[in-house]
């Protein structure tokens, strides 16, 4: 069970406060689809996501990016109980969407980069370390129901 200190919790909240879900969500998901194009396999109903410009102009990508970051908000709010908070999502991604869990790691990296573009030097090395610890817990939780 991942334990966060009070300082880490406030660092995570401070960064999250700077994140506009409506901006960063779509940016992060667009980057996943553009940088790791095999992830297109999970979005068959999204229409044209086969070029960078198509991805960036796709309304469904934008909408889904917001959905994903809204879910991350739940993790921020339940930072001491991420596994339980995400058990349902993990099961869903396994049994219904059949998502290879390695992709959660790739999404986490793209979320970090999207946030870096937004908050810039506020994401200093120590803050990045804390944020990574948080995202690793989220990725673990997303893996937890794959068995």
């Amino acid at each position, binding site marked *: 069970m991942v334990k966060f200190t009070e300082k880490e919790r406030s660092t995570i909240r401070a960064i999250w406060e700077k994140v506009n879900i409506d901006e960063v969500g779509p940016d992060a998901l667009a980057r996943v689809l553009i*940088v790791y194009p095999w992830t297109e396999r999970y979005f068959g109903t999204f229409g044209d996501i086969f070029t*960078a410009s198509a991805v960036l102009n796709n309304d469904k990508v934008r909408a889904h990016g917001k959905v994903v970051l809204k879910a991350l908000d739940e993790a921020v709010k339940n930072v001491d109980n991420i596994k339980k908070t995400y058990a349902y999502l993990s099961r869903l991604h396994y049994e219904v969407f059949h998502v290879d869990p390695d992709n959660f790691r790739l999404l986490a990296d793209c979320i*970090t*980069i999207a946030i870096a573009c937004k908050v810039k030097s506020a*994401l200093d090395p120590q803050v990045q370390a804390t944020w990574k610890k948080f995202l690793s817990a989220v990725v673990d939780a997303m893996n937890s129901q794959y068995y």
Partner: protein
Amino acid sequence: MTTLTAKDKDTVKAFWAKVSGKAEDIGKQSLARMLAVYPQTKTYFAHWKDQSPDGAPARKHGITVMNGVADAVSKIDNLTAGLLELSELHAFTLRVDPANFKILAHNMLVVMAIMFPIEFTPEVHVAMDKFLASLALALAEKYR
């Protein structure tokens, strides 16, 4: 997986032209973040008196590494041949687990995103990611 198209190479060279003035900063910050965020990487630097992310050895080494990346940009048409010596160094002397190349690459991308948020578009992101992956492959060429 890591064939660089002509478009990729053009994108990398164009982006590098914009950022190369800050190469030393990028190098120092990338290495600092790698050591701070992925502490297992410090195991390669046990010989440093000061292993702190912002210590003098780390800053100097960040510059060294980034000079290697700059060199690789100039040899982008044949990374395997161009990085032969560096590959031998990493394979036989340094023996760095190649998984760490991915970690350092990720931190370089984070620093580029922070320092050049407008220029680091998704298209530039994928080209740089592919380039750094190709670089890593060329570095690991002599491993086995």
